[in-house]
């Protein structure tokens, strides 16, 4: 059976669904017996979701207006 360290190393592959069947079974066995790894998996999976929300950015209106002017000028040439 995998250790926690080995399980953590395999999480990306596991979540991408690209793990060979046997390894996935070993990992699932470890997860069934290891609550810290289950919590870790949940937070690892939530990380990109939270980051994507935190990093969404609105272009400042002044820059957006400048972009429109720039494109009108360049694209009509």
């Amino acid at each position: 059976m995998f250790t926690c360290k080995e399980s953590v190393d395999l999480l990306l592959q596991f979540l991408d669904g690209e793990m060979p069947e046997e390894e996935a079974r070993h990992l699932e066995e470890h997860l069934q017996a290891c609550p810290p790894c289950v919590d870790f998996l949940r937070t690892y999976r939530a990380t990109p979701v939270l980051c994507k929300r935190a990093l969404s950015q609105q272009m400042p209106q002044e820059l957006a207006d400048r972009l429109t002017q720039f494109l009108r000028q360049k694209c009509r040439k």
Partner: protein
Amino acid sequence: MADQVQVAAEDESGDRRLLEQAQAGDMSAFEALVERHRDKVYGLALRMTRSDADAGEITQDTFLSAYQHLSEFRGEAAFGSWVHRIAANNALMRLRHRHVVQAAEEEMKSPEFNERGSFAEYPATDWSRRADEKVLDDELRRAIMQATDHLPEGYREVFLLKDVEGLSYEQISEVTGDSVPAIKSRLHRARLALREAIDRFYNEDLKR
């Protein structure tokens, strides 16, 4: 989730319609496409370069380049991922001409294990459900921005392109010139470092 999928599909079909009009010479349709995608392009450029000025210029260059190559775009991919790839290329070119002090790989945080390969510390709180909360805490947003900015460049770009912009591993490989296994390895380390940063935020929050 089903709602998000539906919105994405509607966005894509709206993009396709606007793209056809823009390809036929309708400038207002092109401007509508720019308006739909400028925030994401600007956000990607800003997070990659960490410079307002560079991000503004990259956004301009990206949409100008998209306009100049509109007739070549066949629509096999979504317009959004096409412009994000152009933006990522532009940002990478700028970064490679810039000599900045890099955060060291060794400084990237990851979980600690004991000699038996078990967690050295039991994770104190499962904050995964907070990802679905409607309002994102401003302090958490700042902590995530800081942690992202602190990632070494090659890790930050892969994380932004995959997890924030939604490019595939193959598309990222085309943009960066790196192999897919190398990209996956960096993505995993970047996620671990960002997970640690969020974990610290929630655990410190508990102590207050």
